[in-house]
């Protein structure tokens, strides 16, 4: 079954992803015990070479989010990935829902297109 996150990205992800994708998956699973988890590598859309693993999107569905406002939910996700965010993980799009919310709304926003970022600044000199 194609995940909603991947469908929003408009493509299938080959295999289980690279090493960072697997780390993200296992850390989020351990920290948040999700009932549903999707990890999407958006790096190719941001000018990185294949396998760059710098920009990710995650969809986390977990009962642990119940009663928490979006900011707190996102902070939980960031906590789990603190090391990665201090290092190679450059951008992280987060969709955090409770199982009930996921049931009633399984849509996920797509990643916004890249607009060049710091690379563009440097080229302009």
């Amino acid at each position: 079954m194609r995940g909603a996150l991947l469908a929003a990205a408009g493509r299938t992800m080959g295999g289980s992803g690279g090493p960072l994708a697997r780390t993200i998956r296992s850390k989020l699973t351990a920290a948040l015990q999700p009932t549903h988890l999707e990890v999407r590598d958006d790096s190719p859309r941001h000018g990185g070479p294949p396998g760059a693993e710098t920009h990710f999107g995650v969809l986390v569905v977990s009962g642990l989010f119940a009663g928490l406002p979006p900011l707190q939910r996102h902070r939980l996700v960031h906590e789990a990935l603190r090391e990665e965010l201090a290092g190679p993980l450059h951008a992280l799009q987060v969709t955090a829902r409770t199982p009930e919310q996921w049931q009633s709304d399984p849509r996920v926003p797509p990643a916004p297109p890249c607009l060049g970022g710091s690379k563009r600044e440097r080229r302009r000199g």
Partner: protein
Amino acid sequence: VVVFMKGSPAQPLCGFSNAVVQILRLHGVEDYRAHDVLQDPDLRQGIKDYSNWPTIPQVYLNGEFVGGCDILLQMHQNGDLVEELKKLGIRSALLDAEKDQEKK
């Protein structure tokens, strides 16, 4: 309204930063302080330390950190952003747009 972003509202240099600019624009909010973190690496790290938030863009309303692009989008979709702007004395353009719709 204060935004820390990559690039400027006139020329965002990142899809997530652009999303924030576009959402604010939809609400008629164009006159806000925008800081381009690409111009200043100390600012780029400093603002992440300050808010304890690892990514850019960052949106502050009335000095309080609200979130990044994902959260702003959610607030826009569920009506919270209109309410938060109202608290700041800013009337969202979307309210006027709705009023026009009703008149028709």
